[in-house]
């Protein structure tokens, strides 16, 4: 069996795109007594095990993120 690589992909709303989830969490934190939270942005962490990292960027562009509204970054974890 071929060695596999662990890839971690982070997808998040592009800057300036409305993030209602993040805003809802930001406004909930003070209710628990956490002060001083200025912004919260919520994204998505995707972990992959792949035989090769060659196509990870294409996967990110074509399916894992929607480039109209999201940006992504990825790294080889191990």
């Amino acid at each position, binding site marked *: 069996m071929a060695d596999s690589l662990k890839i971690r992909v982070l997808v998040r709303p592009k800057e300036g795109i409305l993030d209602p989830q993040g805003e809802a969490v930001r406004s909930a934190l003070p209710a628990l007594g956490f002060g001083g939270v200025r912004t919260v942005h919520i994204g998505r962490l995707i972990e992959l095990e792949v035989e090769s990292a060659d196509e990870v960027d294409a996967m990110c562009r074509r*399916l894992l993120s929607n480039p109209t509204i999201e940006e992504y970054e990825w790294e080889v974890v191990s």
Partner: protein
Amino acid sequence: MRIGVTVFPGSNCDRDALHAVELMGADAVELWHGDADLKDVDAVIVPGGFSYGDYLRPGAIARFAEVMAPLEDFARSGGPVLGVCNGFQVLTEAHLLPGALLRNISTKFICDRVRVRVESVETPWTAGCEVGEELTLPVAHNEGNYFADAATLARLEDEERVVLRYLENPNGSANDIAGVCSEGRNVVGIMPHPERVSDPALGSDAGLRILRSVLVGAGV
């Protein structure tokens, strides 16, 4: 006229759409997500629901279903395609329509009736309406907040490609947009559900104003 309705795992307005097509007097054709062809239909409705559980993003997985390949060819060659709600989300994910549908600004699922104004009748799905006509239609969505970048929005307005506009914006959509059409005008995506108000037994048949338009365009 033969009108196809796509069925993905998790579609839940497909039956309503097929029923509406029958009420229109057209032949209703189920298009299974695994079908490799469109069974010679003359128009396609991509219905609402939660295709593939809305996993990843609404419409993101459905966009790669087998039936989408012939559907994209059909759309790009000018065939009339209507995406309703999740169907609209599928068509934006497939790049057949510009923009994207974000989470509602309220972060809440909205199930309501809304008033919309028909802004363009230059599409196969509004050809039987009048410009400025107001319709009351159901909406039921969590991601209906239409987004496109400023340049795209300006272009949509310039080219009169906003098809339906909310009178009272329920979800934060840019420019109160409830529906848009493609550059070729044959692909239309709308968040409201015309198929849910297509039979007087449901309390209204206002939705037929939209759905029947495709017959007008075809000269039926």
